[in-house]
């Protein structure tokens, strides 16, 4: 499955990046392709291109604040979780993506 994700948290110092890493690590183990955009202390990094979003089978928002430029994902099925959940129970997050 091709997945795109966005992580974001209030201070953007640590959890944003931990969640990103955890999602990437888990996706690899489960055999999915993934690209994660981080919206943290250094601004938006690894920004997802419109084509990547269009081509994605699933979208994950692991965020405790509103995702910036969320309209890019209009029409997509988005699984929204808190950053903590992405860090602590990543498998559960992926399980919610369905088929």
């Amino acid at each position, binding site marked *: 499955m091709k997945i795109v994700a966005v992580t974001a948290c*209030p*201070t953007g*110092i*640590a*959890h*944003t*990046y*931990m969640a*990103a*890493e*955890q999602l990437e*690590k888990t996706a690899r183990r489960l055999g999915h392709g993934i690209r994660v955009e*981080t919206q*943290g*202390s*250094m601004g938006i990094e690894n920004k997802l291109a419109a084509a990547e979003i269009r081509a994605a089978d699933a979208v994950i928002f692991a965020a*405790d604040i509103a995702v910036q430029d969320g309209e890019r994902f209009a029409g997509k099925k988005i699984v929204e979780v808190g950053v*903590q959940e992405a*860090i*602590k129970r990543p498998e559960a997050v992926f399980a919610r993506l369905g088929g």
Partner: protein
Amino acid sequence: MAAVRFAFPLAGGLHARPASLLRDACRPFAAAVVFRNLRSGKRADAASVLELVASDTVRNDPCLLEASGPQEREAMAALRAFVERDLPGADDETPPAGSAAGASWLPPVFVAGGGSLLRGRPLAPGVGRGRVRRLAGRASFPKRFASGRRDAAQELESFRRAAAEVEAALAGSAARAAGPVAAIFKAQQAIAADPAFAGRVAGLIAKGRLSAGAAIGQAAGHYAGKLRRSSSAYLRERADDVYDIAAQLAEKLYGAVSRPAAPASGPFVVAASSLSASELPALQRRGLRGLILGDVGATAHVAILARSLSIPAVSVDPGALARIVAGAEALVDGRRGLAVIAPGAALKRYYRLEQASAAEIRRRRSAWRRLPGRTRDKKRIEIAANVGRPEELATAWAAGAQGIGLFRSEFLFLGRREPPGEEEQFAAYTRATRSAGGRPVIVRTLDVGGDKPLPYLKLAPEANPFLGRRAVRFYAGHAGLVRCQLRAMLRAAGRGRLKIMVPMVTAPGEVRLVRGLLKEAAAELRSRRVPHARSVELGIMVETPAAALAVDSLAREADFFSVGSNDLLQYVMAVDRGNPALAGLYDPLHPAFLRLLAGAARQARRARRWLGLCGEMAGSAELLPLLVGMGFDELSMAPGLIPGTKERLARLDAAACRRLLGRALRCGEAAAVRALLRQFAAADDGSARRQVTAAGLVRLGSPSRSAAEAIRELCAMLELDGRVGDALALEEAAWRREESYATDLGLGFALPHAKSPAVREAAVAFLRPSRPFRWAAGSRTPVRGVLLIAVPEGGGEEHLRLIAGLSRRLVHEEFRRALLSARTVAAALAALRSGLGSG
């Protein structure tokens, strides 16, 4: 009648210290001086400190001094000089800046830790614990006659005797004390000796047929009432001083009438709506550990004295104060500004750990006092003190001065009718060099002019005394007086390291003149067979643009140079720094001034002459990098600024400072220099290159057993390592973050983090508790490692990237295991650094 008009310059208003200085300035002249506040409309006899204080004068009030009498012209000239030169520096210790409001957010242990919490305002830092003792009521002022008979004359006599005794006792206390404490005693002494106060008491006894006690009480009420109605909070607090003195007078007359002394019964905390400063020392001797006061401000004398005596103090809401039960255990936290009555075990433990950290931080800080000033790249710069009176010497050495860069000799000459003799001066200079124990003392020769007329100096009044015949310019006409001072200096130099510095020099001829007088002085001592130094270094103040531009030619005559930055800036900018309307122009960052200063420094270096700077700028944190860049050998400042300057200096890189100076000298205006300095301080004062973590930021086997204790300990580690200025502010920021949700990862790791302006540079601190503990009430996996990330407001991208990388690594079990299994600090540090990718 002659008059001088001015805007009152002090933030604290016209309080006892400037008032007694004003009174002293008037004293030598046969003239009656009246002070008028043109805003409040009040007038005061300048001979009465109390009336001056009660004139309700606050900063920027338009004021007028009028003199009348045979010496009114001389008095006015002296007062003009006093207003311009002495008054602006006459404020007391200013209240502690920054955390004046105390902690706004507290770790949960304060709520869950047991006890009842009283939030208030900090008065004096530190933590103290003891049983509550309540002090209530004020001293009483008995109606019965102190002399035993209803005889006004005898009653008056008893009062006069008591006043003289109290004044003498306070004078003795002032002489034994130093710094702000001495100032308090002096201020109280002034009230005890005040003619207006004494006159009012005498009138009440003679005409009102009152007992001395009742008269004192009424007079105190009169002046305290005036002060309480003042527009300045600072002056309102002075009302307590009047009662303090009144109580001491009553005690002299009637025996103990003030509050009963607390019996010795172990450490105690005093809870009282207010307290007299003079009650503190005795209470401390009996075991006082803290103060919980009512409506008392940080500038009240009791608060200043508590800070000096290291007694933690807070002020709390009077209602809450009233509910404190005597005998209960109380904990006073003068840093956060709170008190806890009957604290629980968890909170006591928290404080015990905090105090251990505080002791460690104090130990490290005091190390700065012993260390010489030097930059990170080991360039040495002597950090010295400016001293105006012998009492300040002890303070200077205690603060870690490496020398006295400016010892003003005017205190010996002012306020008297005859000049001081050679012996008196010799004693004063020797006292200074003896206290120095081998460190250098630079004594400045007499620096007065037509603005500060001394009865024994025949200086004609001038229209513009600051551009007139002052300092070295009158030496030729008063050779005897100058030789006398030089003889005393030569003798003192024979016993210690003393250097002589001449003020107001503009040309080499003036230095030659003083050198000639110095030779004559030495010859006189030789002929009298008085031991003295064979040679002594003779230097000059660089305080005129002429001297600053001709350091090279002056170097042929002078052994060393010291920039008098205040006067130099004043002369460069053609601005009277006492004039509030022009304050904006008095700016040391004006490129013209910086270029002049840098040029003078370059010339001194080329001529291989030692170069110092003694003025307010020496202690300025903002200017420090530029002064380092200019290559000063010494910076001499107010003693209180010394430890901080040494610490800041140690973080600077001299080479980087030189590059910064090069850029600053090319700036076109002060605002551009200021922006440059701000940028330098934020990003590149050399410190930013330090690694994000260090051995001092890793602790294994920590005693912390809760999130509160762990976060506190990590913040203290960062403070100790110089990464944060105020650990409390960081702790608060971390807890605010923790409040949105716990940073326990559920992997045996907690990752508290905070962004705070208190953070100087981004850093990561790590601790492993000796016993794993639960981070929050609901958490399942005990925490075995805690990593605190501290980031400055608007911190550097580079550091944030390292920390983002570290956060990513924490997701991986191998990395966590490496951190948790490292046997030594070095191994844990290596693991942490591998996570940061900084090797």
